[in-house]
């Protein structure tokens, strides 16, 4: 049988392998800051498969596909990195099969960059019987019900087989809403596991291992974790354990603390963040990468992302509304379809999910690009103010946003009603 002719659209400029002081720290990325505004930065992130512009949003393609979109549509809307879930891919079609068929890039024929998570989060969030010990995460196999163990070594081995541009260290995930010694234990364990992950990583010159900062909402624990990880001189760092229902004021403070402590010349990834407002705030605080299922999941439930916030297309008022979802959006959906037509598709027909997912991801890509360009062109504060004005036309910008922007050094007084 003839093999498919695949597009070899690899990143134009080759990635130099940078050797750290001990020659052990090889990395397969280049991170060049192109512009700044206070803590915010716009950068070019060169990965083995694609040259990305940050800040960037990564849609989640859990099982080797973004639900309802084809690869060329993702390229059309400017998607740079897709996230794959190690847990799901390891179950089906299995890491061995992906490896045998030339890695996930080949398997799904995605020419741009990929990132895989460690699999730990799904085990804890999806499986009630997960038990975390020093060895790893023990869980009940959804296939045959037998207890299985995922160690840091195995997670990395699986991710090496899947072959994404960025792979994530296995961390000890705890819900942010809990308190007490468990948080501290998880943080120290995450630090111990990072060394096992580094040792197990077989392809440091093809795949970049990112460490994950844990430590709950406790600044002291976060500080220990950040410093521990920075000492390991990894290609990039993620801020984990957030976006799990904690209050917004704690959320941004953790992000601000971590971004301040992480090295300037490495990408910073805030895990699980996907609300447009959160992305704008985190970018102002110096974060670069985000991922979330929110844009595609909310689309399947009939909600569109618009500059003013969200538009619920299931609502009766949409029935006779002949305007596009967002008149300022130039995506395929907004150029061709009315709210009234989408209204009669959503939550009933597959096409409704497909069209809304397309629009929502196009919106997230445009948001990423706008953040990048406004920083480079030196008009970031104006962009942030414009964004907040549309989201909060009455000037009722939440207090946590105001506090975060003060720390980020961005004057948003023009779009806020003074607090009385």
């Amino acid at each position, binding site marked *: 049988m003839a093999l498919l002719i695949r597009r070899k659209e690899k990143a134009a400029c080759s990635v130099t392998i940078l050797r750290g002081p001990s020659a052990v720290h090889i990395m397969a990325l280049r991170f060049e800051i192109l512009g700044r505004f206070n803590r915010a930065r716009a950068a070019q992130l060169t990965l083995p498969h694609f040259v990305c512009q940050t800040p960037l949003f990564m849609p989640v393609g859990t099982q080797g596909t973004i639900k*309802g979109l*084809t690869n060329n549509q993702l390229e059309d809307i400017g998607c740079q990195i897709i996230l794959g879930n190690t847990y799901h891919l390891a179950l089906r079609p299995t890491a061995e*099969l992906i490896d045998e068929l030339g890695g996930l890039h080949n*398997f799904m024929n995605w020419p741009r960059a990929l990132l895989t998570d460690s699999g730990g989060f799904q085990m804890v969030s999806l499986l009630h019987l997960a038990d975390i010990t020093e060895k790893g995460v023990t869980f009940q196999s959804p296939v045959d019900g037998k207890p299985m163990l995922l160690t840091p070594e195995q997670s990395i081995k699986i991710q090496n087989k899947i072959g994404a541009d960025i792979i994530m260290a296995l961390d000890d995930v705890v819900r942010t809403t809990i308190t007490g010694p468990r948080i501290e234990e998880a943080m120290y364990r995450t630090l111990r596991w990072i060394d096992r992950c580094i040792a197990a990583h077989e392809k440091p010159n093809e795949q970049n291992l990112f460490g994950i900062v844990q430590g709950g909402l406790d600044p002291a624990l976060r500080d220990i974790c950040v410093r521990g990880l920075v000492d390991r001189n990894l290609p990039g760092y993620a801020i984990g354990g957030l976006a799990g229902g904690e209050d917004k004021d704690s959320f941004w403070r953790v992000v601000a603390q971590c971004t301040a402590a992480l090295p300037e010349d490495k990408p910073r990834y805030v895990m699980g963040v996907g609300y447009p407002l959160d992305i704008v705030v985190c970018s102002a605080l110096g974060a670069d990468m985000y991922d979330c299922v929110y844009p595609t999941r909310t689309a399947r439930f009939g909600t569109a992302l618009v500059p003013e916030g969200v538009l619920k297309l299931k609502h009766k008022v949409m029935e006779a509304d002949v305007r596009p979802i967002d008149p300022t959006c130039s995506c395929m959906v907004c*150029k061709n379809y009315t709210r*009234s*037509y989408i209204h009669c598709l959503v939550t009933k027909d597959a*096409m409704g999910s*497909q069209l809304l997912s397309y629009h929502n991801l196009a919106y997230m890509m445009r948001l990423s690009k706008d953040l990048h360009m406004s920083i480079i062109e030196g008009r970031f504060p104006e962009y942030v103010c414009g964004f907040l004005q549309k989201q909060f036309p009455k000037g009722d910008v939440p207090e946590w946003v105001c506090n975060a922007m003060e720390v980020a050094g961005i004057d948003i007084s023009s779009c806020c009603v003074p607090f009385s």
Partner: protein
Amino acid sequence: MELHLHCLRRLSLLPQPSRFPSCLFSEEEKRNRVQEEEHHEKKKMRFVVKACRNGRAREGVLHLGSCPTAIETPSLLLSTCKGLPFFITRDLLPSLPSPDSHLLQMSPLHFLECPSATTISNIGGLHQMVGLHEHCFVAAPRDSILGLPDFEGTNKLGASFETTGGRRLVKPVEYMKIISSLKPDLWTSLADEVPAWVSEKRNQMSVDRTVCWLDDCIGINLAAGASVLGAIVGGSSLDERRHCAQEVVKRNVAGYWIGGFGLGESMEERPALLAAVTDLLPAERPRQICGLGLPEEVLQGVAAGIDLFESTYIYHLTLGGSALTFPLDGEERHGYDSQLSDIGSDHTKINLRATVYRKDTSPIVDGCCCYTCQNHTRAYLNHLLNVHEMLAHILLEM
């Protein structure tokens, strides 16, 4: 004045333009109307039979609406849900072969709930609403997927259908209101389709109603009458089939829509029933059939001189996870492969859910130039089907 003119133009796009007596229009407005009619004339259907083969079978060329090029018949109409292919978005449609894929079938019944006819008119009709300006739509109530005839519920007032929103009785007035708002390139009149096993009396009644509704539909909207395909029924009675065809041929219609098939008649009796109808139809007008979906059934229709077919088979295969693989170049393969049939495949299609494709890195069909075959392997499709991902259906429908 500018604004007023604009409003009038908008009005003339609405369903009942003939209501306005011509004395109300100024010279300029009249000129506009003439231009509009000329434009309409250009969009009108033209059909030419190029050649006849083996008796009834024929090859034709159909020029229709805003389709950039002529479509060769016999041809398949791509099934749609609410005017769009089930899974293929507009940006992916150009990757299908042109111009054949420009011919779509749609059901006005999909718009019984929403949007309202007024909203559809406000948007500017079906083409505008679904964003497919260079595609042609043939509207027929029965789509054999989401809308099936419900002969027991049909009465003298209107035809009943099983739809996703339950049973619905559709009266000619209601039906024409939707047709007038959608403005499809061709549309079929309302039919009372009955299965093969009904009594002779019920079958006769279905013919009388169908002919009566054709008159009603044309009467309600004279302008739209130019693009109507007259519905022909008659169940499995040769006499009723002939009677219905004779009556419809007397009417001024653009073409014919033959219904009442795929409803319990046998493969053996079908050719005679089809021939009874097509022998009475004038050669120069197109003929569409409803209810014949399987490749063998389509061939029966082609042999009887049918020009247009529905493609429900593609939809059902897509949902079942199968891909068509039969060679189109006439290359024959003989013999029975037991290995293939064990996994639900044969020489015309393969079941991509089967484990044998788990590691198969070849495309569905070697050398096929569709988006799916150009970009993805059998192994990837097998994975997508196994994890119930939507992309599987998108790729298979293509």
